[in-house]
């Protein structure tokens, strides 16, 4: 601790106090995002590695419905079983795709899981206490976007996996790269699970760090009051809240409180858009998605999601008159 004090003393002789305090604010927010996401990231790299080692493709094929497109709606509910934050869903999604689950089932799961879980529902309920309708609108919006995005993906990409070159390689190399023998020995599988989790921790972790960095910059240098000017505009409020949700990268179980702090000045559609879009697509998970899937797929996915999110939010604004009901 003494070295810390010494260092900050040296630092403060070079930098002006206001800049130093900005810097410290940045550090606190940056590190807090990482520390908070760490358990979720670790959980998901372990789950993903376990799937990779212990579940074979045939088992998954047997579990999938015969007419696969019918699986989209159940896939949206699957998230209840695995309550992870949005920073945790990408590695799991990647392993599921590698194992042969089609993208149009994996993406709906990935989109709905951070929103549908009990913690997020409870937090949203607390944040908007007298207006329970916001909880239903958020859940409804999440299902709407997840289902329709899944359907669009099935039309556009079919059974294609859209993995990028690196992940393609990872998929073909069934050996977790530690040894070249696929083993049926339980302890070897366990050891390979650890190795796999470790590799994935590093390949996903760097995107988490980058995303947290951008999020912390936005938090510190974009005053929220600068958003207020567009609050009651039907379309602009939606667009700016979605952009805001994309940028700040906060946890899906906390964003409802931020949304509620805008409640008097923003349209209800834009608040729901913020709470549905942010957990699905933000800086962190876009970077993670790009590390696993083809660029073309990720960009189309984002465009489709934006489209459905705006559509849903505009409908909410028309029905509610922009007010929170």
């Amino acid at each position, binding site marked *: 601790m003494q070295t*810390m*004090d010494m*260092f*900050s003393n040296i*630092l403060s002789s070079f930098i002006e106090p206001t800049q130093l*305090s*900005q*810097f*410290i*604010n940045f*550090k*606190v*927010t940056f*590190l*807090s*995002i*990482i*520390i*908070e996401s*760490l*358990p979720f990231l*670790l*959980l998901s790299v*372990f789950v993903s590695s376990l799937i990779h080692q212990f579940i074979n493709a045939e088992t998954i094929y047997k579990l999938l419905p015969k007419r696969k497109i019918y699986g989209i709606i159940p896939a949206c509910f699957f998230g209840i079983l695995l309550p992870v934050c949005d920073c945790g869903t990408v590695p799991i999604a990647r392993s599921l795709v590698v194992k042969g689950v089609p993208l149009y089932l994996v993406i709906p799961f990935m989109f709905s899981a951070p929103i549908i879980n009990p913690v997020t529902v409870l937090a949203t309920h*607390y*944040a*908007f*206490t007298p207006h329970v309708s916001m909880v239903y609108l958020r859940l409804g919006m999440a299902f709407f976007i997840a289902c329709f995005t899944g359907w669009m993906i099935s039309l556009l990409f079919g059974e294609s996996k859209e993995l990028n070159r*690196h992940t393609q390689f990872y998929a073909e*190399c069934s050996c977790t*790269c*530690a040894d070249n023998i696929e083993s049926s020995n339980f302890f070897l599988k366990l050891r390979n699970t*650890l*190795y796999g989790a*470790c*590799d994935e*921790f*590093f*390949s996903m*972790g*760097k995107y988490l*760090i*980058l995303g947290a960095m951008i999020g*912390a910059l936005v*938090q*510190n240098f974009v*005053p*929220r*009051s600068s958003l207020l000017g567009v609050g009651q505009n039907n379309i602009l409020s939606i667009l700016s809240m979605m952009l805001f949700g994309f940028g700040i990268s*906060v*946890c899906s179980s906390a*964003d409802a*409180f*931020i949304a*509620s*702090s*805008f*409640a*008097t*000045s923003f349209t209800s559609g834009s608040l729901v858009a913020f709470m549905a879009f942010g957990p699905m697509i933000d800086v962190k998970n876009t970077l993670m998605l790009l590390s696993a899937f083809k660029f073309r797929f990720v960009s189309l996915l984002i465009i489709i999601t934006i489209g459905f999110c705006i559509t849903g939010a505009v409908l909410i604004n028309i029905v509610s008159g922009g007010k929170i009901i």
Partner: protein
Amino acid sequence: MNRQLHFHIHSLIKSLVLLSSFNLIRVLLSAEQLSLYIHPRFTFFTEVADYLLLILALAEFSRVVSISNVPVNSLHQHSHGHDLNGGYILFVATLFFAMVFPNSTLDATQVSNRGLNTRITPNTATIENLPRPLAEELKTPKGIVVTDLKYTEIMSELNQFPDDYIGKEVNMTGFVFRSPGQSSNQISLVRYVITCCTADALPYGILCETASAKQYPDGTWLEIQGVVQKGKYDNEPVGMIKLSSIKKITEPMHPYVFPYETPE
């Protein structure tokens, strides 16, 4: 066939990074500074995650040296090395950043960045204002002592239903912040409320009035005593505290307020 010893520098770096991350969180935990970053309800998860980091560090360390009969497939090694090269620097920089700079609290400049509750949401319900679980308790003739545990609820009550509390004595702690448009004898007393991590901190406070307001710059921590009154701010009627006693204090050990913390 001769046996070959392979040394994997990437595994060594990875295991050192994991070990340092484990250590960083251990230090934060033992210095009780983790609550500067995350809500205490996540402490347990972070502790578990920390041991997972240690397990991963050990697993990775066991990969540093390997013995094989055949030369290791070069394609294999190559592609993974490449993927990770760019990544290490981010991990190392983050660890350096975390260890060298002091663990500190968000300062008062962030209040205007994030928007104070009394300014941005004058009328909206935030945390549990209906069914107002505290209304009965606060109506008793005793004064109101604002505790960390009930901070957000009491602030909502005072800001949204000030009529119910006029003339009541209030004791509270917070730091000074001035919103644009406040008159020279007004300050706000503020705390950051944290739901998950410091990135989602929302400033919650109440307007205070005192003739000596000028003596307290933004960010000064105060312990105050005063009486609830009705005042006007931005042409909206608001609850405010007319201060009778003010004591400067150093920043408390736990500066943030964590709602829904179960009492221990």
